């Protein structure tokens, strides 16, 4: 950002390009953007108490959210004022643009501005890191019992549909329909999915974010829901902790000759997959949270939980693990605030169970796994900002000391 230093130049003499450029690189836009970010963060922090963290983050900071209407708006005569705010993603994008144009391109270049320039680069790097994390990071969790091994994490939110062929009782290759192709298939919408090497297609419709298969004998359908083999999908209000939602949908098989099967239910809340037969080939169709295979195995040797005396406040959770890759074992420890970073993945100690386990009872450890290409960018950007500020401070201090010295010399 560069303060306008050419105040004598009449605005009407500028080209339209210049006016837009001045606006986008100006202090005013930076100030408004920062205030908006402050407001959005404050409103989101309050709103997530009732609506949960994940949906609130999506509402306020997703790239899909151009604008939003906050829950906390003033009311007049019992009616909420229609207050519209820009989405946080786009406010950050505008701030990034402003910082590039004003804080890097337009800024006066000289020895005295080096510190500012470094700090601005740091902020730009931080904003870019946020964008990269938003678009390219993945999160999941892995629960491993003591003495057991896991090579897979499970997504917190995304439900997928998987089709796999069963050969000798085993499934080796799972075809995965990602959640982004399902979530828009609400009532009345459907989509057909073809799979390479699978002799049928799937037509999926009626996606519900949170639903359970209910028996019509237990509770007859109240909203004219479609009943399949005695069951229908009963919609449940979304959970505040959205990872507890159980998605569901209706599907039907389409044979190569175009024949459609009777519809069937696919749901996250199921114990077994649906089995279908095509000739002498057998396939399973299932809906579940997306599995995310790891490039190595994690074996949990021991899990230790220490609490502050007389409280349930955790003092220390420690997982002693063995990372197994290509037959090679590495002994490691993952604890609170001391994650394992390896091959672009970060394993955080997230939770454990069973809660209230007695001494000697087998326990399991839960790791949160994050793959974020910009994992360390905020840290590096903070170093850059701090270094830039230090340079600015030292430059100013040097200038001040030099001026004072010259002043004393002149006075003497």
């Amino acid at each position, binding site marked *: 950002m560069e303060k306008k230093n050419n105040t004598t130049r009449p605005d009407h003499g500028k080209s339209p390009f210049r006016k837009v450029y001045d606006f986008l690189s100006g202090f005013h836009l930076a100030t408004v953007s920062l205030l908006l970010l402050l407001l959005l963060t404050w409103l989101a922090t309050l709103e997530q108490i009732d609506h949960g963290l994940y949906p609130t983050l999506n509402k306020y900071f997703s790239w899909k959210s151009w604008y939003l209407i906050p829950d906390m708006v003033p009311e007049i005569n019992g009616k909420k004022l229609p207050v519209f705010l820009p989405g946080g993603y786009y406010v950050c994008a505008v701030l990034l643009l402003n910082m590039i144009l004003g804080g890097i391109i337009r800024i006066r270049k000289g020895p005295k501005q080096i510190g500012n320039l470094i700090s601005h680069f740091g902020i730009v790097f931080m904003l870019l890191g946020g964008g990269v994390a938003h678009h390219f990071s993945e999160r999941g969790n892995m629960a491993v019992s003591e003495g057991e091994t896991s090579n897979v994490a499970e997504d917190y939110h995304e439900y997928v549909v998987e*089709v796999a062929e069963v050969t000798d009782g085993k499934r080796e290759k799972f075809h995965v329909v990602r959640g982004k192709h399902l979530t828009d298939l609400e009532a009345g919408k459907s989509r057909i*999915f*073809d799979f390479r090497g699978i002799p049928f297609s799937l037509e999926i419709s009626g996606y519900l974010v949170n639903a359970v298969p209910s028996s019509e004998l*237990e509770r007859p359908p109240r909203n004219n829901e479609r009943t399949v083999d005695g069951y229908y999908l009963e919609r449940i209000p979304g959970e505040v902790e959205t990872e507890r939602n159980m998605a569901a949908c209706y599907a039907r098989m389409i044979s190569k000759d175009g024949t459609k099967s009777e519809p069937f239910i696919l749901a996250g809340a199921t*114990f*077994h997959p649906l*089995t279908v037969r095509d000739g002498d080939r057998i396939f399973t169709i299932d809906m579940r949270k997306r599995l995310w295979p790891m490039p190595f195995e994690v074996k949990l040797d021991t899990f230790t939980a220490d609490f502050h005396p007389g409280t349930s406040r955790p003092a220390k959770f420690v997982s002693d693990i063995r990372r197994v890759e290509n037959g090679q074992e590495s002994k490691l420890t993952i604890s609170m605030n001391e994650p394992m970073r390896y091959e672009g993945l970060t394993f955080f100690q997230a939770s454990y169970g069973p809660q209230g386990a007695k001494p000697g009872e087998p326990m399991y450890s839960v790791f949160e796994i994050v793959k974020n290409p910009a994992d360390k960018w905020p840290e590096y950007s903070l170093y850059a900002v701090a270094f830039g500020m230090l340079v600015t401070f030292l430059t100013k201090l040097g200038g001040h000391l030099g001026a004072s010295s010259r002043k004393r010399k002149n006075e003497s």
Partner: protein
Amino acid sequence: MIELAGLGVRAYLRKMKTFSPIIALVCLMIPACEKKAARMTVEETRKETTKDHSPKLFASSDERFRNAKPSPVKGNPPENWLVLPAKEFRELNYRFGESGEAYVTLASGSVGDNVNRWMRQFGRDPLTTAEMAALVKIPIAGTEGVWVEAAGEYASGMGAPAKPGQALAGVIAEVGGRILTLKMVGAEAEVAAEKEALKAFAAGLQLVE
């Protein structure tokens, strides 16, 4: 000289250079605004993981959604009984009237133990040997079982509060070394009205295993 937007080409390119970060950012800000197709080919696959156990093939809807095992007992309930999903300790499970329920259980212990367990639920003392021997016998699952009746305040013993004005009718038999119980509980009038249906249902019961 070629002009673009009133500017010479070089001046125009200079302006465009200035605005190139804006253009780049706008391109970044409009990611994948695609219209989703009505039909698509799924390319993503994954390999088997430690979470993929051998699947239970050809599971029924009850098994898929309730993890229910096929009942070892089969019966032909009266039309006015509502079939409920089986659950733990209830191999067959029905509802009738306003609050009546009937269910079949494979229990442990002896016939006498189970008769007295039912008696305790109505606050009754255990039956004496003579009273036990005097119980009426009726056909059930290819053998004979004892017909049990009780009425009064019913406490199921499952943590639910005791309910007055209840009645019980049921049959307990030893079948193939196992204790088969058929129990009907509900409001007195409703149970009284269904006693004959219960007896007919008991006679038609079959142990599949």
